[in-house]
């Protein structure tokens, strides 16, 4: 729970810097231009960072850090705060040494330098990138107190990259090529099998996020962008693409990223991220600091199947719903911001949000989801999240019936 609890009045600060007084920063000059050739947030925002849950993994080289969704707004994630998931730490690739090999069932195996890739035709698209294990710790019940931890394995940036189709056209695809293997250059040499149909549709071989080159932890210099599909497939530090006639059934699509049902059988190749949403404000790390009155409830919704069509919000644990406002660009397979305004009378509430996408899919409740999947799936938990808002403005992650 956030320090200071809630409904505590916000810190009053130093009256010497408040009107009618002239604050320190008005009296004297601040640092000049290019004191920070590459900018960074105010020191007062130093709590807005990626965080991890240390007990989750044996080592930080194979682990995850979470996007502080509760401290952001709009639908773009700034580059410095995109969640990380590494399987062998951050590969620090020298761009002069970077090579991408494209081979297998192609007419002509090719090798590309980074300069080669950067001079190809390219597009820029904003897509969400969600780990299939996002909310995975919540299958059996409310466990982590904060949307950074329950939902923070998602981010959304504007990628710039070459359509994979462009590379495939360049090499020439043999008729029997039905699958692609994407392989990373990190020390996990991460691999995933990708169906040809998706490869020819909207997959990007991306090298930029929000205009600048990818950050190392997000795959510098080149990663795959597989719109709407689970982030594990978005291979970072991409070094090789092989075309074949069948899937590879590698570790990340068998041991991991398969969804175990209650009967012991497991679903595989569950690529698409189902429609999902979460209220980011208020939430356990972002309590309400005013006692009552006008309140904006805000959150994010997304779907791997297309655009978000609607988001509903409930204040009473799913008994009654109201439709929220969607704001900002509503892009295909991108985070979409929603707002719901109400006059909070200071009572305890059970907050929920429910996303609908353009295919008509409606985000299920946790119990609906558990009914069809059990609680052993680890992955693809897109159930409706409940936050309990207390009278004092504090917010808790709860399970309800």
């Amino acid at each position: 729970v956030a320090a200071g609890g809630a409904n505590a009045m916000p810190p009053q600060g130093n009256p010497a810097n408040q009107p009618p007084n002239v604050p320190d920063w008005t009296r004297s000059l601040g640092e000049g231009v290019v004191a920070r050739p590459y900018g960074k947030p105010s020191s007062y925002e130093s709590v807005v960072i990626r965080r991890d849950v240390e007990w989750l993994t044996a080592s930080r080289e194979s682990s995850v850090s979470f996007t502080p969704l509760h401290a952001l707004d709009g639908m773009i994630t700034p580059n410095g705060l995109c969640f990380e998931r590494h399987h062998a730490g951050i590969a620090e690739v020298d761009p002069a040494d970077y090579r991408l090999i494209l081979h297998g069932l192609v007419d002509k195996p090719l090798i590309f330098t980074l300069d080669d890739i950067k001079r190809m035709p390219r597009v820029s698209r904003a897509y969400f990138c969600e780990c299939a294990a996002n909310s995975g710790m919540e299958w059996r019940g409310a466990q982590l107190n904060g949307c950074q931890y329950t939902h923070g394995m998602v981010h959304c940036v504007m990628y710039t990259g070459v359509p994979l189709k462009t590379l495939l056209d360049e090499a020439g695809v043999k008729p029997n090529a039905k699958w692609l293997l994407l392989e990373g250059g990190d020390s996990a040499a991460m691999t995933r099998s990708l169906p040809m149909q998706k490869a020819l549709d909207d997959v990007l071989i991306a090298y930029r996020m929000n205009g600048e080159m990818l950050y190392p932890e997000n795959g510098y210099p080149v990663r795959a962008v597989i719109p709407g599909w689970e982030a594990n497939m978005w291979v970072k530090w991409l070094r090789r693409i092989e075309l074949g006639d069948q899937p590879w059934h590698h570790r990340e699509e068998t041991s991991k990223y398969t969804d175990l049902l209650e009967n012991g059988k497991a679903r595989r190749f569950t690529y698409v991220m189902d429609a999902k949403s979460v209220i980011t404000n208020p939430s356990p790390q972002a309590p309400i600091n005013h006692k009552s009155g006008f309140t904006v409830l805000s959150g994010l919704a997304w779907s791997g199947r297309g655009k978000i069509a609607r988001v509903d919000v409930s204040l009473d644990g799913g008994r009654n719903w109201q439709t929220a406002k969607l704001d900002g660009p509503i892009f295909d397979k991108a985070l979409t911001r929603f707002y719901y305004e109400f006059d909070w009378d200071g009572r305890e509430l059970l907050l929920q949000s429910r996303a609908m996408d353009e295919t008509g899919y409606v985000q299920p409740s946790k119990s609906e989801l558990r009914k069809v999947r059990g609680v052993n799936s680890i992955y693809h938990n897109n159930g409706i999240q409940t936050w309990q808002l207390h009278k004092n403005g504090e917010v808790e992650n709860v399970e309800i019936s």
Partner: protein
Amino acid sequence: AAQTAPIAQAKLNIGRSATPEEISGWDIDIRPDGHGLPIGKGTVKEGEPLYVERCAACHGEFGESAGRWPILSGGNDSLASHDPIKSVGSYWPYASTLIDYIRRAMPFGAAQTLTNDELYAITAYVLFLNDVIKTEDFELSDKNFGTIKLPNESNFFDDDRETSEKAFWRKDPCMSNCAAGHATVTGRARVIDVTPEQSKGPKVE
């Protein structure tokens, strides 16, 4: 007067041919049908000391795991239980996945350092720990790899959410009085108390 040839969607002619030698160094993937298996061999017995030396510190002497590192064996008949254990023997569908993964990623921190014979020997040993290979003298090789079958293969099925979860596509979700009575809280993350403290996070320079 155009100094430019308009681009017909022809080849870009960017990049160059990759040589077979270049490809060979990176083309390390192995498939269930044996595609990609390197030439080599190793027995369970040969694998044991290699495993003990290079793997056991993390995965445990018998694949039971040390600390929070991944388990590699055990968990038979646990998949439909409340506490499923997904090991090579209990869960993985294909032995090729194991040899591919060890080859590309293990030992953790020293990836791609095993010789092919070491790779077969260690893989054989892990399969032995999982009761898939039954005798210590068994020599695993590119020749006989295809004979190894894992017991759980048949329990995987392709994504069928669009049919099995068709009920989640519903044009008009309930908007009022969607459940009887007041909602009651049945669980609290706060009680479990495993959330990192906001004040104990990593430091920003």
